[in-house]
């Protein structure tokens, strides 16, 4: 049993999930703020 495969799996899942959450939140924020600014009169 190669211990490094477990280490890399643990870090891989955390890094990928954190980046997905960051990017999704960033895109949603930019979209919502642009939409709100676009309706300004």
């Amino acid at each position, binding site marked *: 049993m190669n211990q490094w495969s477990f*280490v890399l799996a643990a*870090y891989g*899942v*955390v*890094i990928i*999930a954190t980046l997905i959450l960051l990017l999704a939140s960033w895109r*949603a924020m930019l979209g*919502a*703020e642009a939409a709100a600014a676009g*309706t300004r009169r």
Partner: protein
Amino acid sequence: MHAFANPARFLKIARPATAWLLGIGLALAAAGIAGALFVIPPDYLQGETVRILPVHVSTAWLGMAGWGAIAAASISQIVWRHPLAAIAGRAVAVPGATFAGLCLATGSIWGRPTWGTWWEWDGRLTSMLILFFLYLGYIGLAAAERERGGEGRMAALFGLVGAVNLPIIHYSVLWWRTLHQGQSISIAGGSTIAPELLWPLPLTMIGFTALFAAIALMRMRTELARMKLEARLRRSAAE
């Protein structure tokens, strides 16, 4: 707290804070991960798998701290009716659930080579799984209340009651004989883990905490912008 009740004042602070937290979080998390993967030596007993410790403890901390933030937001909403409290609670719930899930995943990955099993129904693992399900319940309840135009008081009550699980998670390794190890890290000193294995932990903890805060701020800004847009559209429709 009430100084931030005005969304415009909150946004004035949240905009630069988001960028700062992102930068600091990415730098510290990257340094901690690099230290854990490439610098610290293998443990004499656990071998290379000890490198999982910084990321597992960080995700566990954020899974629990996230619910602590929901409980604080719930008190603020129920007692002081703070206008941003429900938004803050909802903003923290998804990253909190994600990190609670990541804690379970990294623990399971660490458990297989260390304990010989992916899962065990012991006190720590089971109470953490309950926390994950509490997050899912809170997310569903808060979304349903928001859709119906409610103030989110039911979700706030749920957030407060769910906080009972936090001390159960913390003390589970003392109250029950579990497969999970007891407390081995202490801020006040007396950690039973060698310092040369432990130094990446504060870097990953502070780094991921900053990233968590940045994500929460981004989600709050998203909801505030959507509310602003909805209010404008309602006003235009009424005219």
